[in-house]
Structure formats: C-alpha cells, structure tokens
C-alpha cells in the first residue's frame, strides 16, 4: 500500500501547469485535493511519472457571482460548499449534496474540480451540476474553452479533457426564486460511492425542469420523460413511475428488478422533495 516512485512539481501558474501536463509523452497526473488520486497511487492503480500539484493555483480558487452565473473555482472543497461558502444556495441543493460526500476529513481536501475530472459514474458533482445546467471551464496549451457538463463527461472515468488540459472552474446559471431542488442518494456503507443518486430541479409548473440519475450508467443521465411530467405539475405516483420506467430502461438492464426498484425509488424521493417545497 505504498505508492511507486514519481516526480512532483508545483506550477506557479495555469500556463506552467498545462506545459507540464502531458509533456514529452510522460504519464502525468494532476492532483488537487488528492482524495481520489492518493488511494489510486497507494494501490498502484495509477502509476504516473510526474504528479503536478494544482492546489496552489489561485486562479482555480475563484468563487464569484456574475450577472448570469455563479462561478465556482475548481479547487473549491466539498467542505467549503457544505459550510455555505458559495454566494448562492441553489435551493440548498449543493450544500446538501456536499454534506453527504464521503467523510468530513475527505471533504476538507476533496475538490469539486477533482471530482468532475475523475468522472466516477457514482460521484455526486457530475450529476448535480448536470441538473443545474453547469458549464465546465477548461484551460490547456491552446487556450480556454467552455463546455456543457453533459458533453464534457464522456463515460466511466472518461472526459473530453486532453492530456494538457485542466478544469479551471464551473459556471452554474443563477437560479431565480422559483427554483425548487430535491436529491436522494442510496449508499450501502456510509462514505462509499453511491449505488444510486437522483437530482431534481423545477422552476414550478410550466417552467424548466431537469431530473438526473447517477450511479446507474457509465455517466449521469437526464430523465427527459420524468422532467416533462414535473413541468406539467404531475402528482400521480403511478404516472411518475411510468415515466421513470420509460427513462431508466434506456440506461439500466430491465432484467435486474433490484436496480430498477432502487433507481425508481431514489428518483421518486428526489421528486417528492421538490414537490413538498
């Protein structure tokens, strides 16, 4: 349980970081909080030649409210979000999600950027940010780009990040007062990755709605039929169950009744939280 040897660098700027990452064909790994990378290093699953420490880059720590967005720096820790350090509460959603990630000692160092860059299918932030319609801001040697998170996450541990690119932060559209949020997560052992997570947001009857299921497929998925029912103000559990079955069947093998029931249940509970507000 000891990591293999690697070299280590602390870049002083984003430009220096992107110059180091993926350079000269070396296996490089970016580290922020290290709460996912350290277990992988200790277990020798990850075997980089060079670890590039992003934790001191001030540009990745920016938290700001613009006219249209809440800008969340990639280095923002789960604990900071849990403690209400964002300028917008998103109906309490991000605070609640943060407080249920792993344990406090992990939340003190684990970052939102690191979580999204790893793209574990059972992670909390990719699904939550998808429900909120966030964009990922990315910088590489060729410059900076912005991409909707639904296009950024390509699959299990797979994103559109090139070897030299890092996540700088996220732009999350500023909600208005009508925003209602719900989420529910099933974890067999506290602190472990989830078996099923659902996120639901609604701007009231007729307004936009989004429902996301994570830990079910290789990436978080939108449930459009369920979102349509929420938009229409549907309260009937039978109707909602039909819509969930229709959407979830696209992502989960129907011959696994346990998983179908599990995911149906987490989505229903997230919807009930939205409807109770």
């Amino acid at each position, binding site marked *: *349980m*000891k*990591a*293999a*040897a*690697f*070299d*280590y660098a*602390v870049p002083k700027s984003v430009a220096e970081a992107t110059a180091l990452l993926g350079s000269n064909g070396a296996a490089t790994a970016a*580290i922020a909080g*290290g*709460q996912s990378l*350290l*277990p992988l*290093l*200790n*277990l020798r699953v990850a075997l980089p030649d060079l*670890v590039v*420490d992003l*934790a001191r880059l001030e540009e990745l720590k920016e938290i700001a409210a613009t006219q249209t967005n809440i800008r969340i720096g990639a280095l923002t820790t789960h*604990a900071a979000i849990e403690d209400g350090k964002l300028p917008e509460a998103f109906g309490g959603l991000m605070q609640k999600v943060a407080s249920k990630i*792993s*344990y*406090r*000692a*992990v939340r*003190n*160092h684990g970052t939102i950027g690191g979580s999204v860059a790893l793209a574990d299918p059972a992670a909390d932030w990719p699904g939550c940010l998808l429900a909120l319609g966030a964009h990922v801001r990315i910088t590489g040697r060729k410059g900076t780009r912005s991409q909707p998170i639904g296009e950024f996450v390509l699959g299990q541990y797979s994103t559109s990040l090139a070897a030299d690119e890092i996540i700088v932060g996220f732009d999350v559209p500023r909600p208005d007062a009508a925003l209602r949020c719900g989420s529910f997560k099933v974890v067999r052992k*506290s*602190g472990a990755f989830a078996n099923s997570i659902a996120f639901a947001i609604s701007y009231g009857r007729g307004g936009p709605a989004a429902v996301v299921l994570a830990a079910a497929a290789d990436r978080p998925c939108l449930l459009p039929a369920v979102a349509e029912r929420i938009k229409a103000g549907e309260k009937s559990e039978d109707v909602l169950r039909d819509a969930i079955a229709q959407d979830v069947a696209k992502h989960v093998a129907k011959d696994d009744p346990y998983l179908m029931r599990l995911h149906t249940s987490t989505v229903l509970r997230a919807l009930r939280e939205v409807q109770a507000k």
Partner: protein
Amino acid sequence: MKSLTLQLNGSKVTHEVEPRETLADFLRERCRLTATHLGCEHGACGACTVAVNGQATRSCLRLAIMCEGQSVQTLEGLEDDPTMEVLRRHFHQSHAVQCGFCTPGMLMMARDILLRMPNPNAQTIRDQLSGQICRCTGYSGIVTAIVAAGRELGGAERPQP
C-alpha cells in the same frame, strides 16, 4: 528527494522526503511520531486522522510534500489542548478504548467535531464519526465519551482550531 518544511505541532521542521511519501509515513518514519496509526492506507479506516491547517485530514491521503509551509497537528501536539484534555478524561471514564488502535484517529476526529459543533447529540456524533472504524468497542463507549465531553465543553469558551 525534495526538501520539505512545515510547522509540526507548533515547531518548524525540515526534512528531505520522497514525493511519494504520504504525510502518515512522514510523521511515523521521519519524525518518529507514532501516535498516528496506519490501518488501511487508502482512506477507509480513519486511524491516521491528523489536522492540517486546523482541518481534519487523513494523513494517508495526503502527500507529505503537499504540506509545504502548512501547519500539521498530531495527537502528540495536543497534550495540553483544552478540548483534548476533556476528551481524554471522558474516553477513560466511558471506557471508549479496547485495543487502542483506532483511538488516536477517534480523538482527532472527536476534537474536530467538538470544535465545529457545540454540544452535539449522539446521532450527530455517529454521523460525523462514520469515517472512523473501530473493530472492538461497537462504538457505544466512544459516542458516550464524546457526548459527555461536548456537554462539559458546551458552555465554555471554544478554542479555535
């Protein structure tokens, strides 16, 4: 090897370290501070919990070299800490120890809980302590001890981490 300087239990310490060295190995092997125990070495058991810049941290999930210029506190450095003094006494009185392997991590996390949440109830403590594994006690004595310590400290002035 790279040079690492940090504040360790209030004193400035400099050592040569390998980049792959975890903070836990640095504390135990280079600094001979063996109160920090290593159980799983991949963030599951909580035995290696210390404080980095005042925040509870799994020392097996942090490279020592990442702590350059930072402040690290281990159980050895908290002998005269007012919160730890009360916790130690209640761990003794409630028999919150059996084999003792998890105890340093339990004490570090218990102190973190009491500094963040005044006078927590048993359920809050169980939630907050869910990342610390004890294979002997069944947790009852540990939770009882932290509830009692929280009650005793509840009205007192709270020292900053």
